[in-house]
């Protein structure tokens, strides 16, 4: 048996010095000062085919944690199987790669700040890592009821600092997304770049202006459309379509903050518990009938009934009172202020024609929901009208010239294109003129743009993020220091370059830098490296000996292998 230099050095600092003279003994003496070894760990990830970047990052991280004396194996699982383990068997896993995706309504930090880490969501909700911190709960709750934006920002900052301190996730990156469109067909000055969403957003679609005779916007989607139903959102693609056909009381503006849309004004009382919505004058459904306050009341009360629109129910349940004093006014009452209400309710729910949907909802049998109704006319009041949907092929919308914000393009067409490389070719051949869903190598897109000067590329940092999650319920991950050390060991720069090819921004907060108003820049300065991590572990009493990590003295692994 050889004595390693590391063991000797550590021994020098211990009181067991006297035993050095007995040869093999010091090793045993060292063992006595440490706890049991940390068990071998499994780091779950999506499969290489499904998410190559994430898988690559997992492989690198496993290797780096190996340097801390951990035995980490990467296990890749298909999406549903992975969710099955992580989401539904919350006591049974240790480490997983995971991601949160960006959506327009997530441009308000509430959803991530509250749901991801609040203790009440630990059992079955979003807090699947089982993070518990009363101080955090307090900040998350308070930001929700703080109507003053600056005061609320302080609380959002506080929440980010607590997470930075506790590291329940090892945040990795906010991925960058890539979009492209033909500068020959459309005037680039009329394209809006929305924070966190990029150029594919509502404002672009109503304002983008054709330069010549090609007045159809033809864009791609690499996923099938599931439904085109104002009460059912089952995927990102669905919401791209519904938000154009159906108006909403408010919209997330170009600055990422909610602003009145179908409403002329949204006025709150001083206590921020009652809001008065005044609808625009002269609004009409696509069938010519006027949009009234009754329609709005219907749209916000129907989802609250049992089994009508389960996806929307949580967003309307917080409304305790709603009435329409006249044809253009709606008054909503909440039992306490809700800072995210405008973003997550008023800017999320579609205004649905009562005369079309009320009779349909009346036909629902027990157990059925509005989600299963295929309403063929798709009458809304939005800037685009529904024309046709050929499953697996395309969905066609046409401009609604009667709308107060009429689109400049004639038609909005979304083609389902599964082959990314073919999509690039279609941009060149003109079969498509707006690349709204590019999942391929960004380098290829840049090359294509160099060859074709008319191809305009736009990139955007995502609101969503990629991370490695620690199961805070299970030792040693219940120890904050241990989580911090593991997180600090990961060289973010290397991950960013090696796994994401540099097409990502470094992350250390659940509020993305794509939301500049809410993101706390103080969390950005994370010093990483294996050395730092080792020092942290050793200071807390963990011992790395002979390539194995041991618990501090007196502790053993409850799940030892």
């Amino acid at each position, binding site marked *: 048996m050889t004595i390693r230099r590391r063991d000797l050095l550590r021994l020098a600092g211990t009181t067991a010095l006297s035993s050095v003279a007995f040869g093999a003994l010091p090793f045993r003496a060292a063992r006595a000062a440490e706890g049991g070894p940390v068990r071998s760990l499994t780091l779950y990830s999506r499969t290489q085919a499904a998410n190559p970047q994430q898988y690559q990052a997992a492989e690198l991280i496993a290797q780096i944690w190996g340097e801390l004396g951990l035995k980490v194996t990467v296990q890749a699982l*298909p*999406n549903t199987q992975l*969710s099955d383990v992580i989401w539904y068997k919350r006591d049974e896993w240790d480490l997983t790669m995971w991601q949160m995706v960006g959506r327009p309504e997530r441009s308000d930090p509430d959803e991530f700040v509250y749901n991801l880490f609040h203790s009440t969501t630990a059992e079955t*909700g979003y807090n699947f890592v089982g993070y518990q911190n009363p101080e955090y709960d307090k900040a998350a709750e308070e930001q929700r009821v703080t109507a003053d934006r600056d005061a609320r920002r302080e609380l959002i900052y506080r929440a980010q600092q607590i997470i930075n301190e506790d590291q329940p996730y090892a945040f990795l990156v906010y991925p960058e997304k890539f979009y492209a469109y033909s500068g020959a067909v459309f005037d680039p000055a009329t394209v809006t770049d929305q924070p966190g969403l990029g150029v594919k957003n509502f404002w672009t679609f109503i304002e983008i202006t054709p330069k010549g005779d090609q007045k159809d916007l033809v864009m791609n989607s690499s996923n099938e459309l599931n439904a085109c139903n104002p009460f059912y959102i089952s995927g990102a693609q669905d919401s791209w379509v519904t938000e154009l056909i159906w108006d909403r009381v408010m919209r997330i503006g170009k600055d990422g903050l909610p602003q009145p849309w179908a409403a002329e004004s949204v006025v709150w009382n001083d206590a921020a518990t009652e809001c008065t919505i005044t609808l625009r004058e002269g609004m009409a459904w696509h069938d010519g009938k006027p949009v009234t306050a009754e329609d709005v009341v219907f749209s916000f009360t129907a989802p609250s009934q049992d089994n009508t629109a*389960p996806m929307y*129910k949580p967003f309307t349940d917080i409304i305790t009172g709603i009435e329409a004093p006249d044809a253009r006014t709606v008054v909503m009452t909440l039992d306490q202020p809700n800072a995210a209400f405008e973003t997550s309710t008023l800017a999320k729910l579609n205004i649905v024609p009562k005369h079309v949907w009320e009779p349909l909802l009346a036909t629902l049998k027990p157990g059925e929901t509005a989600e299963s109704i295929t309403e063929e006319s798709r009458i809304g009041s939005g800037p685009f009208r529904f024309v*046709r949907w050929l499953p697996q092929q395309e969905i066609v919308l046409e401009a609604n010239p009667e709308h107060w914000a009429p689109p400049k393009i004639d038609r909005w067409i979304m083609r389902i294109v*599964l082959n990314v490389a*073919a999509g690039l070719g279609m941009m060149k051949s003109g*079969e498509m003129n707006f690349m709204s869903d590019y999942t391929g190598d960004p380098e290829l897109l840049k090359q294509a743009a160099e060859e074709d000067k008319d191809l305009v590329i736009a990139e955007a940092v995502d609101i969503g993020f990629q991370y490695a999650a620690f199961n805070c319920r299970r030792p040693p991950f219940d120890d904050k220091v241990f989580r911090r050390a593991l997180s600090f060991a990961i060289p973010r720069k290397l991950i960013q370059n090696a796994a994401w090819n540099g097409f990502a921004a470094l992350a250390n907060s659940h509020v993305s830098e794509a939301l500049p108003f809410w993101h706390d820049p103080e969390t950005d300065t994370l010093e990483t490296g294996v050395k730092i991590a080792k020092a942290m572990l050793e200071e807390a009493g963990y011992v790395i000996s002979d390539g194995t990590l041991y618990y501090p003295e007196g502790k053993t692994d409850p799940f030892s292998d």
Partner: protein
Amino acid sequence: MRYLFNRLVHMILVLWVVGTVLFFMFRIMPGTPLAAFIDQTTTAEQQQALIAQFGLDKSLGEQYWLFLVNLSQGDLGQSFFFKKPVVDIVLEVLPNTLILTLASLVIAYVFGILAGAWLAWKRGSWIEGVGIPLALTTRAAPEFWLGMVMLAVFAFQFGWFPAGGANASGAAWDSEWQRIFSLDYLSHLALPTLTLAIYLQGLPLLLMRSNMLEVLQEEFITMGKMKGLSTRTIVLRHAARNALLPVATAFALGVGSAVGGNVVVETVFSWPGIGRLLVNAVSASDYPLAQGAFLIITAVLIVMNFIADITYQLLDPRVRVATTA
């Protein structure tokens, strides 16, 4: 008559077995249909509501019984995600699938049979030396690679054909027939059909050739030659007709499996079809859609198998005699 009745009972039995295997297979598979809803599902209540809505709160036995009862009434249930009846969803994509797979099957078999017969006749010549490896190479080439090459050359280099989809974007038609017979549709159909045909031609070609070689050894061919019949008459009227039998079976089975679509070609060319539907259904654990679609495919396959048997009897009197005796 008795024979037909026996076959029918046999077919129903097979369907029941396949249905049962499918039913349990999808439920034993790890993963849950709820996973695809996680992003939106925030509360435990909602999850419970979804489980109840999907009928997954009942015991497996109960679910299976319901499945059988509904199946016997021709009801395959409703897709978890599309929220539409499974039969409607499958029928929506079936025409495009059939057009693509049948067109390429016909091209592949006509070409394969002729080329196979010809190569057998040219046995030992340099034509065979080039032809066989060529057929084997195209047969072995991965479909997606073949598809990408087709796209690179004919769509992007020469610009002769569109790169994806079944119709030009935004095109509208008065009727489904008009759409299918439009030049637009046919030009979109060309590349995927050709790709699939190149992939499929190997089987009939090699099958035809080896059968021909066997038949050409038979005495009646020697007899024909002695009678002074022309090469054409011997090859086509006497040899080819006899060698065609196994190829006919392969064709009928090919038609049956054509209903399953071809997920690779459908993906490369963004062609609407049942293959894509199935892959999505399985990966999202959409049990009703996955098992329903597979069941429909099985039914068609069984029927085609049956038809193959009948054709066999028509084509070959020897089989006919054997069954009646």
